[in-house]
């Protein structure tokens, strides 16, 4: 297992290099001159040129890439063109809020999704199933910003239970985590339902029943763990997406997270920040895939590492 981990970690490096080149090219392909944006609309051409020189944007692209990669290898992500702060600091400050928000969203969404999914699968084509799936699909069909603004109106402004936004205490997590999680809960519920329905048709479920086990044990003990295998992949994927930060929710809830930073950086063509964020997303994806693979091994002994 240790060897497996090492091997997987080593594999990350070439992927990140390819990703970094792609990102670099993509980011520079988007029209828009950061110097102009940084200097502001009332800047004169001299200002812009000055800024451009200051930021090193006057150099050829290849040279810029080499500098960028050189710094990257030294562990230096550069400085934000917009705020002049080190990129590491900009991202560092926003990473944990995004991470915790994602984590809490995933936690409730997974629990709720699993419960709804199990109930739906066991009460297939009866009203709890319809209700559960209707609820789940509704969760997928609501525009997030609308839901967020509605929740703020109800729970923050009218009832005053939770803050409207920002990150102050545990209460700050409730509304954004709820909003962010609804879609995920819906997806998990649907995946769980269909995976469990497949599993319930398996022979070993019949075997479990033939032993005289209670239905509760048959489902939660014997079936769910098997059904979790596809659910885990999907949950991992969702987790990966959410870790990138959700622009819409961060905007609505004034959340100091990565998604908002990305949008702001794009608006300013803040290349170092965009590039660093993208690299981090790619890394997150890889790590999550790794965790999913490990979970796979735990859930399914057939694919356990040697």
């Amino acid at each position: 297992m240790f060897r497996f981990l090492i091997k997987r970690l080593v594999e990350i490096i070439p992927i990140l290099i390819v990703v970094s080149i792609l990102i670099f090219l993509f980011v520079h392909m988007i029209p828009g001159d950061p110097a102009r944006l940084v200097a502001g609309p009332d800047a004169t051409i001299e200002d812009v040129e000055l800024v451009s020189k200051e930021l090193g944007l006057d150099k050829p692209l290849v040279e810029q890439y080499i500098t960028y990669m050189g710094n990257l290898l030294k562990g230096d992500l550069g400085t934000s063109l917009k705020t002049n702060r080190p990129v590491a600091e900009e991202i560092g400050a926003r990473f944990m809020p995004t991470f915790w928000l994602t984590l809490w969203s995933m936690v409730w969404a997974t629990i709720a999704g699993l419960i709804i999914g199990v109930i739906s699968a066991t009460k297939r084509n009866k009203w709890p199933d319809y209700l559960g799936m209707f609820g789940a699909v509704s969760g997928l069909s609501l525009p997030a910003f609308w839901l967020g603004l509605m929740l703020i109106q109800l729970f923050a402004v009218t009832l005053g239970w939770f803050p409207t936004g920002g990150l102050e205490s545990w209460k700050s997590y409730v509304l954004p985590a709820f909003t962010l999680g609804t879609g995920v809960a819906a997806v998990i519920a649907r995946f769980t339902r269909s995976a469990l329905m497949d599993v319930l048709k398996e022979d070993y479920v019949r075997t479990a029943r033939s032993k005289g086990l209670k239905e509760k044990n048959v489902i939660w003990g014997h079936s769910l763990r098997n059904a979790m295998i596809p659910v885990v992949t999907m949950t991992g994927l969702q987790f990966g997406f959410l870790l990138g930060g959700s622009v819409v929710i961060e905007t609505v809830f004034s959340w100091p997270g990565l998604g908002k930073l990305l949008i702001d950086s794009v608006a300013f063509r803040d290349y170092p920040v965009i590039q660093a964020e993208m690299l981090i997303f790619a890394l997150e994806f890889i790590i999550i895939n790794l965790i999913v693979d490990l979970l796979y091994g735990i859930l399914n002994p057939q694919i356990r590492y040697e």
Partner: protein
Amino acid sequence: MTQYLLEAQNIKMHFPLKKGIFSRKENFVKAVDGVSFAVKAGETLSIVGESGCGKSTTGRVLMKLLDPTEGRIIFEGEDITDFSADKIRPYRKEFQMIFQDPYASLNPRLTVKEIIEEPLIVHNLEKSKRQERVIELLEVVGLNKYHANRYPHEFSGGQRQRIGIARALAVNPKLIIADEPVSALDVSIQSQILNLLKDLQAEFNLTYLFIAHDLSVVEHISDRVAVMYLGRIVELTDRDRLFKHPLHPYTKALLSAVPIPDPSAKKNRIVLTGDIPSAANPPSGCTFHTRCPFAKDVCVETTPEYRDYGDNHFVACHFAEELEG
């Protein structure tokens, strides 16, 4: 030397073993590990053996659906082993396959006509003649033209197997590799298909390579029989010889294990101990030594030679002579 229709020379097929996502592929499943035999025109050669011993894989290699790890395939004296997909295409007319599973081997989305027509299209038969040929084939296998526009799921297992046979016959092949064509069928249908295969052989002078695990079926249909164990042929000879004077201990055990549908029959059975070893990790020496009641030290150490015991009775056992009595 007689001209063989098909010769398999020391065929090996090793699949890289990918055990889950966590390990590197370093092991191989030796599905077929050095199989040689030759099929004469017009005869039926059967291959029997237990599940996983490499029967289907051998069939697939001979059909050029898999590229063997080692060995040569000679068809009508021509070595076709290394032919590319394009080069082999015209030869495919000459040998066709019937599959074990009549449910999975027919595309559920195509009508019977489309299924049977496909080889005709692939081998460029004129459009005008195809329709006729399809109806002709349907009749040959005991169906009729009313069935042409139906979908496979509307047919019973036996009927589907007939469709599969019609497809194989469409291009007038010389050789048919039948991979357990009756195993999935009901007992009462099995005999219909066996009879059909026999009739067709007589009518079109077909050569069969018949893969099976049911010894009573094999005895009924074959001219010669090869017994496989763990990727190798352990015994090959005429049907009568094999059933009356088996030499290899495995063949003997196999024959004695077949349940006889007669409650008053006398059973003196050789019940083997142990399980079939895995093809990924076959035992040393004679691969059968782990279950062989007569195994000696030499069996553990050296692989027995596959030799002609006389009268084209091939066997791979160190003690074939001693055990004969």
